[in-house]
């Protein structure tokens, strides 16, 4: 057992660090949940991809570096430590691309992936529906067969990035008569500017249009935009890609970097006597700061172990639920601690001129609050942990 990086890993770390030092904007980009910020983040994706830093884990042919999972983790550590911008292409890179690598055709990969890597096409996810939150199997939107393709109709909810993105992907009920709700679904990609698509942006807690409702009325999608077999959408979506997904949803690098920034904030407050009213908070926050540091390190190490398991050919199942609950609670605790340390400045929105660290703590807190809700609520995750990892009786909730 070891925690050693190969020469190649270290080389990648040094290259990434050097590139990031040279390229990361001195002042943070505007929030990617705004039109202005979205454009700026799209441009940043182009800059990343120009030097093949946007999708390091992909094969070279699609713009990547064939980085191992561990090397991807190294890159992420450097990326967030450098204070680089959030990834506006995340939906495509983390959710759609793994599915294409497993179920997509060569034609689909060649057509979709390079444009995704360059930020030319930015993807929204369209999983949820108004009546299908935690309970995805109860999807109602339909895909109806037509010449050479499918007609999509229905409504999608909580479609992140959809306010400004180019295309979206999701599941649609293509075979209404099936025994079980998981059957008869088809995985499709579709353009957000197509005829029949109406987008209603929805403001998140702080008002920024972080997601949207999609109303689809006979939207024509060609067969080439079906991923996998029609009717097999559930299997395609829940594919072994889900495996790594549990690992890539939120990389540890985000948290180790945030924990280091928190310690810096805490030291600054302690040494300087801190913000007015900061002083008492300092002693009181001592444990919370330490726990954030320890938690970030634990999540990093836990992920190294999982990466080692995957590299050894094992697969991750319900373990991802441990991950999800842990990082989402860590993220909130870490940001709440920061806001408490900031005392009277803690309530300033990220747009406020006095907002500390250009509003990073406020924006981060708002973002963190969604953690326990999306990608399977933490209540569902705890049920999964109890039933699949501890073998407790299923069903009763």
């Amino acid at each position, binding site marked *: 057992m070891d925690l050693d990086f190969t020469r190649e890993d270290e080389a990648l770390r040094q290259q990434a660090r050097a590139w990031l030092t040279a390229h990361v904007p001195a002042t943070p980009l505007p929030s990617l949940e705004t039109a202005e910020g979205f454009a700026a983040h799209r441009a940043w994706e182009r800059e990343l991809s120009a030097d093949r830093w946007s999708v390091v884990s992909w094969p070279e042919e699609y713009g990547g570096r064939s980085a191992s999972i561990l090397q991807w983790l190294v890159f992420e550590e450097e990326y967030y430590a450098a204070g680089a911008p959030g990834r506006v292409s995340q939906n495509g890179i983390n959710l759609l691309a793994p599915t294409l690598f497993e179920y997509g055709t060569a034609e689909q990969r060649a057509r979709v992936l390079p444009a995704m890597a360059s930020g030319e096409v930015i993807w929204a996810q369209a999983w949820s529906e108004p009546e299908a939150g935690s309970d995805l199997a109860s999807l109602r939107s339909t895909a109806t067969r037509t010449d050479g393709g499918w007609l999509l109709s229905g409504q999608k909810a909580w479609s992140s990035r959809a306010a400004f993105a180019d295309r979206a992907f999701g599941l649609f009920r293509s075979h209404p008569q099936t025994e079980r709700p998981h059957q008869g679904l088809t995985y499709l990609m579709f353009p957000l500017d197509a005829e029949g698509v109406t987008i209603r942006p929805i403001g998140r807690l702080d008002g920024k249009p972080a997601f949207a409702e999609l109303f689809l009325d006979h939207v024509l999608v060609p067969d080439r935009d079906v991923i996998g077999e029609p009717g097999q959408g559930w299997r395609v979506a829940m594919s072994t890609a889900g495996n790594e997904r549990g690992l890539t949803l939120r990389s540890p690098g985000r948290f180790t970097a945030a924990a280091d920034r928190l310690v810096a904030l805490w030291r600054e407050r302690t040494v300087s006597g801190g913000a007015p009213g900061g002083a008492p908070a300092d002693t009181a926050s001592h444990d919370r700061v330490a726990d954030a540091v320890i938690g970030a390190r634990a999540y990093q190490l836990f992920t190294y172990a999982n990466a080692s398991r995957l590299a050894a050919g094992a697969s991750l199942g319900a373990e991802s639920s441990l991950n999800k609950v842990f990082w989402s609670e860590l993220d909130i605790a870490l940001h709440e601690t920061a806001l408490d340390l900031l005392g009277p400045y*803690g309530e300033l929105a990220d747009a406020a001129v*006095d907002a500390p660290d250009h509003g990073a703590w406020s924006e981060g807190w708002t973002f963190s609050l969604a953690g326990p809700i999306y990608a399977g609520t933490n209540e569902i995750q705890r049920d999964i942990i109890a039933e699949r990892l501890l073998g407790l009786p299923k069903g009763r*909730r």
Partner: protein
Amino acid sequence: MRFLLDEEQHAFGATLDRMLGTAGTPSAVRAWAAGDHGPGRALWTRLAAAGVFALAVPEQHEGVGPLPVELTVAFTELGRHAVPGPVVETVAAAALLDRLDDKAAAAEWLPRVAGGEALLSLVLDQPATRYALDPDAADAVLVVDGDQLRLSTVWGPLQPSIDPARRLARPVGGELLAQGPAVREAARHAAEVAALLTAAQALGAGRHLLAETVAYAKQRTQFGVAVGSFQAVKHRLADTLIGLEFAQPLLHAAALALAAGDLSAEREIAAAKVSACEAAYAAARTALQLHGAVGYTDELDLSLWIRKARALRSAWGTPAACRAQVLAPRAGPVSR
């Protein structure tokens, strides 16, 4: 001892609750956030008519106060309905002016406060405040610096709070209104009033967040049953209620201590402030989690209360500062 609100106090709260319940406060908050203070001022006038601000003003200035317990009752309702604007600051500023030797300033402002014609913002020379709340909406911004009280008419850029109903700015300079030890003493008193009424607002906001979430949990179904039938949901809501129910008596005791001018008032207020704000923030977290994604949208009015709960947490006394006051050496046993 009868440590319960009496009939009139209950009735007063219920009246405000009914009045505000039909006043469409969410739209007033959204207008306020957009810089349109019209609906907010209209609410203000109705609150004055209901006698809220007179509770802060003594009789010789056309008020009926100061009545901390009744103010606590009223501000719980203001919080329950998320009334926008510097309500806490106006009442605290009135308390400050009332404590000054300078009868002129009191005579000029207090009757207008009682009548709901004057909105005051307030900045004190103490850690928890660096910004004036809604100076653009206020008729005056009072600023205490050391032993000087100034009336400021200039301030820096308006800065958004996580609570859309709150907009903050740093006051600049201003005309000298009063000076001397009485100013310090009055400011200390005003800070206690502000902390107490912020706690009351927070408790009311927490009550609303819990009520909305319980109602939602009864009606929202997942996996074919009401979300509110899941034991994890039930227990989380039970814990949220416990937090609010045990903050309530701390709030009442703090109001009584302030009314009696007890030495323990500062400590009792600090205990009430941190408890009410922690309970309200926990209620916000619960509301957000149990509503799921829809609770995370700003178009659902719930978001106004969730964001207010976060802002009130640090307003007029951070949790850490309040806990430090509770343990301050001179405090002695909190319990007797």
